[in-house]
């Protein structure tokens, strides 16, 4: 077959082939379970050990703790917990280091916003971010 007829046959065949595009904003992309997305935070699990804030390479995590309200118990509970997604690189180190799995990764990655202030996520927001959570965690 002549070269150009081969080309024409190929493009014609492509007309009915299954398309390779995704209907992305309407249908979420299927992502692997180990995808590194925006973190989910469990305030009740947190022991305020500060390891996440220490290991963070961009210093985007800030947290404060307070004394446990029950005087019989030792240790602290979390008071504020903020991640600045202007500089967070979603490196997964905070979730790796967390001894109680109080912070885990999710598959959510849509961080586009109209204002930089929106990228400053606090404890409530991270607690409510409870969709598409990574299933396999160490604890």
């Amino acid at each position, binding site marked *: 077959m002549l070269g150009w007829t081969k080309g*024409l046959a190929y*493009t*014609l065949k*492509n*007309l009915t082939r299954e*398309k*390779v*595009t995704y209907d992305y904003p309407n249908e979420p992309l299927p992502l692997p379970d180990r995808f590194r997305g925006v973190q989910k935070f469990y305030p009740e699990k947190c022991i305020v050990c500060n390891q996440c804030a220490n290991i963070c390479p961009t210093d985007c995590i800030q947290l404060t703790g307070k004394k446990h309200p029950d005087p019989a118990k030792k240790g602290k509970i979390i008071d504020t917990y903020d991640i600045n997604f202007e500089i967070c690189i979603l490196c997964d180190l905070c979730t790796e280091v967390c001894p109680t799995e109080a912070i885990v990764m999710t598959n959510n990655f849509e961080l586009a916003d109209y204002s930089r202030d929106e990228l400053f996520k606090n404890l409530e927001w991270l607690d409510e971010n409870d969709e598409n959570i990574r299933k396999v965690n160490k604890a």
Partner: protein
Amino acid sequence: MIQDLLHSSPGLSNFVIFFLLATVFLFVILGFVTYAILAERKVLGFMQGRYGPNQVGGRWGLLQTVADVLKLLLKEDLIPKAADRPLFILAPVVAFAPAFMVVAAIPFTDRLQFADIGVGLLYYIAVSGMTTVGILVGAWASNNKYSLLGGMRAAAQMISYEIPLVMSVLGIALLAGSINLNEIVEAQEKGWFILWQPIAFIVFFIAAVAELNRVPFDLAEAENELVAGFHTEYSGFRWAMFMLAEYVYMFAMCALITVLFLGGWLPLPFLGFIPGAVWFALKFSLVVFILIWFRATFPRIRADQLMEFAWKVLLPVALANIFLTALLKEFLNIF
């Protein structure tokens, strides 16, 4: 009806009638262009493993082109400081006007046509040659090296390919004994000219693609080497005029191929109950599809091969075809 109008004495009422008819026809053509662009993007998309426009105007993107044109019309009117202002403004008009003029000569069915010109074929080819002037003027007035290169390429290419284009239709003129487009269609009652003149069809089709400046002969606007070629400096509605001219030519050229080679509004045997307009539309759509199909398939031809192909291949083949046709007509007396 049009014939009577054309032969009636000039007057204000006749002028108004002609003006309204032309306006209606212009809107019909604009409608075609709108959906030809959409069809092109859709077919290109499907051939490249994607869907093409599917957001604006429902699943099929039916309003995508409308939105694009609206955007173009709303854009700021930019004219480069160093450009030749009057020529820059004039060029899109010069490019578009002949595109609209040629469609007046094309018979869509035996009743639906505007001007039944005795030398319709000649008129088409002569008037369509004028667009090159518009392109060259626009290219020169832009005062930009890429534009000028694109314009020169366009001029050289369109003049070169006009010759095999004309030479290939001479075979048809010989067989039909006329260059009136109506009579050419009527001469195809015995069989479409694509059967009697296959060589002429191939030459004509290649030359037509080159005349339309479409892939694989789109050297004049080669996006990736010349930054859009002759319309680099054009934007907004002036650019839209160039695009419009291009697609109206596509309309006209596909209609001409339908009329010359595919029997115009004539039906296939035993299918005469389908009206002529439908037949014309079907054949016409097929030609448009083939042009888009070519665009999806072929890479751009090299500039030096382009000229050699026109002068050393197409022209001798077209001339040989004329000779062969004359011999067959004279000695075998088939026609």
